[in-house]
């Protein structure tokens, strides 16, 4: 009994000190745990779900990167190779030629290449595309919906709070695993076909 009342007896200040230090230790552990085991977050990047995208202007206007890291991509297996491509030609076009006034794209980012009568191939020039989705909407309304938007990970800086995702009216923006960073309409082989790059920035 005497030993219990001896030097091991904890004073009030001592108790508070010990409690405080243990709480600090626990907090440090929590932070450490989050840092060490938070790998799930480290390996995700932003991507657009084409099934949810409503083709508004936000992908073009709200990205912190200029021009936007969002680009139109072409699904070649879905494309109809139409002579009269609605994603390419302005509704009020005069002739089926590549003259600027006949084109829908505001930045001339679609290349039209003759394949064989009556088929034409349409390729997106990523460096010119601003992700405005005009061609995407037109192709979906009148064609096979082979054009769609994707985040180009070569340009995306993978912000923690993506400014486009914050504005997206249809919740089309998702975090996806960094090792499969594209949500493609066809299959992942298109990553090579479309020369889509792996993410440069991960959070």
């Amino acid at each position, binding site marked *: 009994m005497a030993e219990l009342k001896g030097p091991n007896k904890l004073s009030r200040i001592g108790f508070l000190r010990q409690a405080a230090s243990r709480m600090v230790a626990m907090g440090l552990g929590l*932070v*450490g*745990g989050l840092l060490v*085991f*938070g790998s799930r977050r480290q390996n995700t990047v932003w991507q657009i779900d084409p099934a949810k995208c409503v083709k508004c202007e936000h992908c073009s206007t709200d990205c912190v990167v200029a021009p936007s890291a969002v680009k139109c991509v072409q699904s070649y297996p879905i494309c109809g190779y139409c*002579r009269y491509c609605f994603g390419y030609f302005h509704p009020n*076009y005069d002739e089926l030629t590549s003259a600027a006034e006949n084109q829908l794209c505001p930045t001339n980012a679609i290349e039209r290449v003759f394949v064989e009568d009556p088929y034409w191939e349409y390729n997106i020039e990523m460096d010119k595309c601003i992700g405005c989705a005009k061609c995407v*909407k037109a192709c979906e309304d*009148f064609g096979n919906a082979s054009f769609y938007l994707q985040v180009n990970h070569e340009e995306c800086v993978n912000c923690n709070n993506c400014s486009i995702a914050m504005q997206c009216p249809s919740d089309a923006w998702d*975090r996806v695993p960094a090792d499969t960073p594209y949500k493609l309409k066809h299959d992942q082989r298109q990553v090579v076909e479309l020369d889509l790059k792996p993410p440069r920035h991960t959070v």
Partner: protein
Amino acid sequence: MFIKQMKKKENLGRRGFIGAGLVGVGGALGWLARRFQGPDMVRKTTPVSGGNRFEYDVSEFEKTDPAILKYQPMGAFETGLESVKRLETTKDGRVLVAGDQKVKFFTAFGDEETEIAIDRSTHCLHMATEDELIVGTVDQITIYDSQGSQKFVGPRLGGRTYLTAISSNGDSIFLADAGNREVIVCDRRTGNVRQRFGKKDKEKNNPGFAIPSPYFDLAVAPDGRLRVANTGRLQVETYTIDGQFQSAWGQPGMKIDRFCGCCNPVYFALTPDGDFITSEKGLARINHYTGDGEFLGVVAGPDTLVEDKELARKACANCSIGAGFDIAINPAGHVLALDPYRKSVRTFVPKQEAST
């Protein structure tokens, strides 16, 4: 002294042990927090709505100029089918509708008379004579009499065959095969294939059929030649009945006198004078052209055909190929349109007739 130091060290060791334990517990909690957290949250802000400067706007093409609108709606009746495909009229004014796995017969006033059950989805139908109805499924035709009794079952064509239209002339039946992008000519008595044509052929000056979606219509015109909707080329083409290409008309574009979309006209009907009534999907519209393709006027524009866009969107939620209004002309010269959204048959009459 040494013992005191030892005791102190022991005390520190115990505290250190507890501290390390707490760090471990914290770490585990951190891991659990990550393991079971929900999806990454986006701190949403209210979207700034200042109009879409990149909007793809085709609304000007959805309105029809009253000056070129030559017909007006005059009633409709429900088919009672879940999905409707093709429409046909008989010389006595009866209306036949193919849809689901059946063909329904209606009087000219829309009263249901009878129906024929088909074992597969009906793709197309053609009233060859007053007592001969040819019904096509994906790769086979069956001939019925006017009472719905089966007279003949053709052989299955198999492979990639995807029948979309039927017509006939003499002892020949012409089938539009969207799967193989060909016209198949069959013997009317045996159903055997006599000829196929439609592949690109420079020697015969045949441009080849470009059919991006399962819409591929054909009909034998009063002049005895075959008219085929080469939808990928946005043209109507004329062929001799042995498959020799002769001419084509039609321009691509959204303007009212052109064919819009990836593949149009999806359907057409011929008047007794040889004029064309064409139906387009995408920008749904039904137009009237002469036999040479000269634009005469509008039967019904998008503002008439698709009054309820929400209904059309819901009705077409699972269709990736769009929906077209099949058309037929009844003995009175009225244009009947099969509404794929309302599953009804709508009648359009010339404005002059409606006003008298």
